[in-house]
């Protein structure tokens, strides 16, 4: 028996795969956005709105779920390409699974690719998928205390989208307090309160995404 010093993080091979995938996507001018949230936060509704509002940007969607294809069917009904990814019980997407999902997409010239991660505020934050942007969604009914309970996801995300703001009159959700809690964990996080139903706040989010895509294609760093 001999002793070998490994000294590698358990996720080291995933981090390598993710970095490689990110560079391949950048070379093709494609920005992948890793969308993370709890189940029922309105990910698919938000994406449907973005597809309708941004016809000049070709969008594709990868829907990761443990089961079913209902989300992908909703996206395809809008004319955007969608693939359904079944994770077979796994609670998150890693870089290898993301690469396999990208290979399942037909190359139709899509420049903005959304990865709808598994509905879960914990594990998806721990695995780099190879995305150029990490974006999380928190819906008004979930409560403004979530940054206190699931800090890692807020720390890792470039943007926090607070959805279902049309429901604010019916819930005790303080948008400013929630944004302040998120910024305490991550001073650089952008916060977008939106209602995909009424369209309120969507223009700011869409402009930000357009700017990020342009910066990505111009070769800017992940933090650009």
């Amino acid at each position, binding site marked *: 028996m001999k*002793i*070998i010093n490994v*000294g590698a993080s*358990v*996720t*080291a091979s*995933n981090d390598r795969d993710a970095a490689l995938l990110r560079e391949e996507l950048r070379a093709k001018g494609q920005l992948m956005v890793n969308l993370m949230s709890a189940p029922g936060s309105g990910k698919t509704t938000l994406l449907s709105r973005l597809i309708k509002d941004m016809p000049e940007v070709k969008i594709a969607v990868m829907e990761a779920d443990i089961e079913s294809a209902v989300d992908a069917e909703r996206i395809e009904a809008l004319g955007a390409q969608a693939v359904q990814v079944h994770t077979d019980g796994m609670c998150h997407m890693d870089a290898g699974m993301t690469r396999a999902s990208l290979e399942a997409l037909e190359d139709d010239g899509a420049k903005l690719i959304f990865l709808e991660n598994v509905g879960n505020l914990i*594990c998806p934050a721990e695995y780099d998928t190879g995305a150029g942007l990490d974006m999380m969604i928190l819906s008004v009914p979930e409560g403004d205390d979530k940054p206190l309970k699931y800090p890692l996801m807020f720390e890792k995300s470039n943007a926090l989208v607070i959805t279902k703001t049309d429901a604010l009159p019916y819930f005790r959700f303080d948008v400013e307090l929630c944004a302040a809690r998120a910024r305490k964990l991550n001073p650089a996080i952008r916060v977008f309160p939106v209602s995909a139903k009424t369209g309120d706040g969507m223009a700011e989010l869409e402009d930000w995404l357009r700017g990020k895509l342009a910066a990505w294609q111009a070769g800017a760093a992940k933090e650009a």
Partner: protein
Amino acid sequence: MHEMGIVLHMAKTLDETAEQNQLTKIGRVTLQVGEVSGIMTDLFTDAWDYFKKKHPMLTECELVLETIPAVTWCDNCKKTYETVKYGKTCPHCGSGETWLLQGNECIIKEIEAE
């Protein structure tokens, strides 16, 4: 489920290490786990015991877990404190401008193999 995912990632790194060093059997692996890594060590050990039986190189591999204590740094008063006891708020000065220095790791420290 999360622990099983970590075991799978760990096995991948072990396979790569075995290939680089031309190993055929791993007898012991030492894993350093941070106090606030979110890994439940009991569940992790169960997942490992289940998995290793199906992986020829690891069937007799013993898992040794070492804990890395969680330590937070306060940007305001420039002191450190125990994360698990005090969380995000500095016990010395009450500031929230604090950052985790160590404690969320999951590192394969060393293996014993032939």
